[in-house]
């Protein structure tokens, strides 16, 4: 377990943060300028906090009181930087094995295994300058993995890439996060990456923790609007594949005993998937509507309701044990007479779904 409790000033960033990463993927989420990178640099030992304590599996990495400050090279943090930071004068292979030949780290993991995981075998003898942005970042991830890390710190590894390159890397990250047995701290300001990869979400704002907890819980909290972003706000639900309709090319999913249909390829029956449903793609009805095109109608109850000052209202509906967020006009909320506890139908257009977000259950 990685436990962080630090205060300190670095450039314009004033940090006062406390969180634990108990295993799986912890996402540090916040806008640029919220101090995420500084915080990660404090964990890996590149920036010294003013006060506080950082421990990893009960080993003290930093403690201001007892003046413990383990140097970065001894912390064994696999740090993946926003810019790949590959050494330009040596081959990809030498970069990947750098921790072993220059850092004296033990070779715990075979090179072939990591190369395979990231799909970079054809790049081994090349110079980093001859790689695309996405390839460079995959090599950088591999280099961190091969340093026998006790935790993995990924500081916006996709931020410098365009959408196509991101899509190229995400499946690898997805696999990596699922298979890794060490705590992973994943820094991002992109909600799509967070919901796809993270188990725990820590929302940062101006160096302070606004909220932390399981991803699905945090995403449906209405008080975090500005921090999690209004336009992209939405919920994360887990579903299980129950079938595929080849005629209409629709995947059928089970959510809390109810059924969802969404476009997609044939997925193995029984597979657990995560689905992200944006609040603006969800409508609410008080009766089961007829003669509408919307295929997904889930029964639920209003769990929380917030009327904003402008024209909008946010509604959180409980469906079984899960929550879905809807963004409506304040007028609709008023006309429907929405109150907490009211049974409603949650309507989601099938085409509003992106493809299922990886295969990670949670």
């Amino acid at each position, binding site marked *: 377990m990685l436990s962080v409790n630090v205060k300190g000033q670095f450039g314009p960033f004033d940090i006062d943060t406390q969180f634990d990463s108990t295993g799986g993927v912890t996402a540090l989420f916040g806008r640029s300028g919220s101090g995420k990178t500084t915080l990660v640099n404090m964990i890996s030992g590149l920036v010294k906090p003013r006060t506080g304590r950082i421990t990893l599996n009960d080993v003290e990495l930093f403690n201001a009181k007892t003046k413990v400050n383990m140097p970065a090279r001894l912390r064994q943090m696999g740090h993946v930087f926003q810019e790949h*930071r590959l050494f*330009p004068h040596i081959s990809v292979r030498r970069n990947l094995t750098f921790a072993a030949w*220059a850092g004296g780290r033990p070779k715990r993991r075979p090179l072939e295994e990591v190369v395979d995981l990231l799909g970079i075998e054809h790049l081994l003898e090349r110079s980093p300058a001859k790689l695309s942005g996405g390839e460079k970042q995959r090599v950088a991830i591999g280099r961190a993995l091969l340093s026998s890390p006790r935790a993995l710190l990924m500081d916006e590894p996709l931020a410098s890439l365009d959408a196509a390159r991101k899509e190229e890397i995400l499946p690898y990250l997805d696999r990596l996060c699922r298979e890794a047995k060490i705590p992973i701290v994943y820094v991002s300001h992109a909600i799509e990456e967070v919901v796809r990869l993270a188990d725990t979400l820590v929302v940062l704002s101006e160096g302070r923790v606004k909220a932390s907890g399981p991803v699905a819980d945090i995403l449906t909290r209405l008080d975090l609007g500005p921090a999690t972003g209004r336009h992209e706000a939405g919920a994360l639900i887990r579903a299980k594949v129950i079938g595929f309709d080849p005629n209409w090319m629709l995947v059928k999913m089970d959510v809390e005993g109810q059924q969802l249909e969404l476009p997609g390829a044939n997925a193995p029956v029984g597979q657990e998937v995560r689905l992200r449903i944006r609040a603006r793609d969800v409508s609410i009805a008080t009766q089961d509507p007829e003669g509408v095109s919307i295929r997904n109608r889930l029964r639920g109850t209003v769990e929380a309701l917030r009327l904003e000052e402008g024209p909008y209202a946010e509604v959180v509906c409980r469906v079984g044990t899960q929550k879905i967020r809807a963004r409506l006009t304040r007028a609709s909320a008023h006309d429907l007479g929405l109150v907490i506890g009211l049974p409603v139908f949650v309507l989601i257009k099938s085409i509003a779904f992106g493809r299922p977000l990886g295969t990670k259950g949670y």
Partner: protein
Amino acid sequence: MNFMSDLSPADWQAVFLSFKVAGIALLFALPLALIVAYVLARWSFRGKVFLDGLVHLPLVLPPVVTGYVLLLLFGRAGILGRFFEHTFGLVFAFRWTGAALAAGIMAFPLMVRPMRIAIEGVDRKLEEAASTLGARQVVTLAVVTLPLALPGIIAAALLGFAKAMGEFGATITFVSNIPGETRTLALDLYTLTQTPDGDGAAFSLIIIAVVIAFGAVIASEIITRRLAKRIGGN
């Protein structure tokens, strides 16, 4: 080539002596210059401006002054001169070793400057990355910083070599103009211009000096380009 026939064996001796003096000067000055350049580029400490000034002093002082200071310090009666004579049996005054010392000191600031710029040009973020991968500072220096700064270091070394080959003022002041001992190419050329019928030999020496200097500059350029290409610079 027939113009070379103007050169006496003593003139050729001066040419070879220059290579020896410049080579030895570089052998000692290069590692020192590299250390000073690294310290100036990467450390911050009190008195850094003082060190910077001290290093550059031979560049801005009249060479005669530098030569005279060397004579005071490294002469057989000077503090450092006595120290080196007693400890290592090494004498600088009026010996070719003194010529090498003068050449090394005069070339020093010319080497430190480009080396410092080359080291400063290496992204510190790469050094940070190396530390998170477990590398000690010296290892990072050896396998990341210096290889990346290598084109600049080699350019600096060749510049220093060219300067050491041609050093005149400090050398003649410190170790005088002794044939076969301290009379280097530049000093020999000076002597020939003071001799009534030395023009032919002087011209031949000038050709040799130009060829050596030009060769050093071109070699520096080629090596730098090749390395930069290998590094695959941005």
